[in-house]
C-alpha cells in the first residue's frame, strides 16, 4: 500500500475530490497548510508599515491506495489540480507497511 500526499491550491480541492471520487477513491484526509515555494506570498500594509505574508495557503491531501493504483491516482490528481500556473503544488508517494480500519480492525488493502 502507498500513501499519496498532494499539496495543492485550495481552490482546486473541490475538483480534485470529484475527480478522485470518479476514480473510485472515497477516502481522503485534508489539512490546511502554509506553503513556501516559488509562488510568493503578498504584501499587506498596516498604518504605513508593510508586512510580507511570505507563505501561500495550500491544502494537503493524503490518500491511501493499493500499490497498483498509484500511477492512475497520481495522474488523476495531476490532471485535476493543474492550472498551469506557478504554485500548483507537489505530489509525493511513500510506502505504507500497514493500514488498519479502526472500526473493524480490518488490515491491509481491505482497510483502505
Amino acid at each position: 500500500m502507498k500513501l499519496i500526499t498532494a499539496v495543492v491550491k485550495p481552490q482546486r480541492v473541490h475538483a480534485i475530490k470529484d475527480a478522485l471520487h470518479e476514480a473510485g477513491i472515497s477516502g481522503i484526509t485534508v489539512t490546511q497548510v502554509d506553503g513556501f515555494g516559488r509562488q510568493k506570498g503578498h504584501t499587506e500594509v498596516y498604518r504605513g508599515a508593510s508586512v510580507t505574508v511570505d507563505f501561500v495557503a495550500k491544502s494537503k491531501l493524503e490518500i491511501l491506495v493499493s500499490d497498483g493504483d498509484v500511477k492512475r491516482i497520481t495522474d488523476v490528481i495531476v490532471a485535476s489540480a493543474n492550472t498551469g500556473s506557478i504554485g500548483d503544488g507537489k505530489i509525493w508517494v511513500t510506502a505504507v507497511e500497514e493500514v488498519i480500519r479502526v472500526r473493524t480492525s480490518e488490515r491491509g488493502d481491505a482497510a483502505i
Partner: protein
Amino acid sequence: MTNLPINGADTAWVLASAALVLLMTPALSLFYGGLVRTKSTLNMMMMSFAAIGVGTIVWILWGYSLAFAPDTGQGLIGDLTHVGLNGTLNTVVGAQGSEIPTLAFVMFQMTFAIITVALLSGAIADRAKFGAWVVFIVVWLTLIYAPVAHWAFAAQGGSGGWIIDKLGALDFAGGTVVEINSGAAALALAIVLGRREGFKRDAMRPHNIPFILLGAGLLWFGWFGFNAGSALAAGHLASVAMINTQIATAAAAMSWIAYERVRNGKPTTLGVASGAIAGAVAITPSCGFVTPLGALVIGLVGGVASAYAVSLKYRWNYDDSLDVVGIHGVGGFVGMIGIGLLASKAANSAGGDGLFISGNPDLLFKQVIAATTVAAFSFIGTWIIATVISRTIGFRVSRDQEMTGLDTVEHAESAYDL
C-alpha cells in the same frame, strides 16, 4: 433636603451623553484589542476595563474634587470640598435656566477621565505588568489628569482653571485634557517602557480588523456624547458640535485613506478606522467653535497629519505601539491650532474668531500656549511617574513572558478557543 430645580431637557441630554461616553472605553478596548496580536488581546482589553474600574473609584473619592472643586488660588488645582462626592447630592451646576444635577455632571466628567487614561494603554501594548498598570492609573489620574482637567474645564467665573479662566484659550471638549494629554503621556510611557521584542523586525499584524472597525464605529457613536454632550445643554451649541464631529470624523477617515492611496497604493480599512479617530480627536476641542466648513477643513487636515505622523515612530525608534502619539497627540494639536485659525463667532457667539476669520493672531497664540504647556506638563509628569514605577515594582514583564503573551502570563486565559 429639597432638590434644586433643573432643566429636564438638558439633564436628559447630559445623562444620555454620559452613557455614550462611558461606552467609548469598552469600544476602545475592542479597537485596541483588535490591533494587537492574539496572544495579548485580553490584556489589552483588560487595561481599558481597569481604567473604568479604578478610574471610577478614584474619581468619586478625590479626582472630581481635585478637578472641579473651588480653585485653591493659582488656577492649578481644586480643593478637597467634594472628596467622596461630598456636597454633590441634590445640588446643581450650569448656567441659569440650564442647570443640571451636579451628579450628572460628575458622571459625565468621570467618563472623560476614564477614557483618557485608557488611551495610554495603547502605547505600552504587549509588555506591561497588569499590577503596575493599575497603580499607574491611580497615580496618573491624580497627579496629571485632575490638574489638567481643572486648568481647562473648571470655569469658576474667572477664578477657576488657568487655561479657561485666565489665559482664555478655547477647548470645547478636551483637546488639551484628553487628546494632547494622552498623546504626550503616551510618548513618555513608550520611552520609559522601551520597545517590544521584535519591534521593526517582526510583522505585528492586527489580529482582528473587524473588531477594530466595530470599535471605531462605537467610538464614533460615543463621540457624539463626548463632544455634543460637552455643550451641557440640548440646543444650538450641541447641534453644531454634533454635526461638526460628524463632518470632521468623516473627512479625516477619507483624507487618511486618500493619503494612503497615494503613498502605499491602497486605501485600507485600518486606515479608515484610524482616520475616523484622528478626525474625531482633531474636532474635539474645536467642535463648538467652528462652522461646519471649518470642521471639514480640520478633519481633512487631521486625517493627513496623523496618517503621516504614525510612521515617525519607526524613524525615531520609540515604540508607541498603537499610535497614541500620532493620533491623539497630533490630532489634539491640529484641533487646538485649528481653533486659533478657524474659530468663528458665527458658530458660537461665546467663542472667538480665529486668525483666518478676524486676521488677529491673539487666539492662535493662546491656543498654542495651552497646547504646549499641557503637552510639556503631561510628558514630564508621566515620565517621572512611569520611571518611579519601573524602578520600584517594575512596569514591564520579562522577555520570556512577553514572547509567550500576556494573556496566559498575566490573566491565565486565552482569547479564543474556536
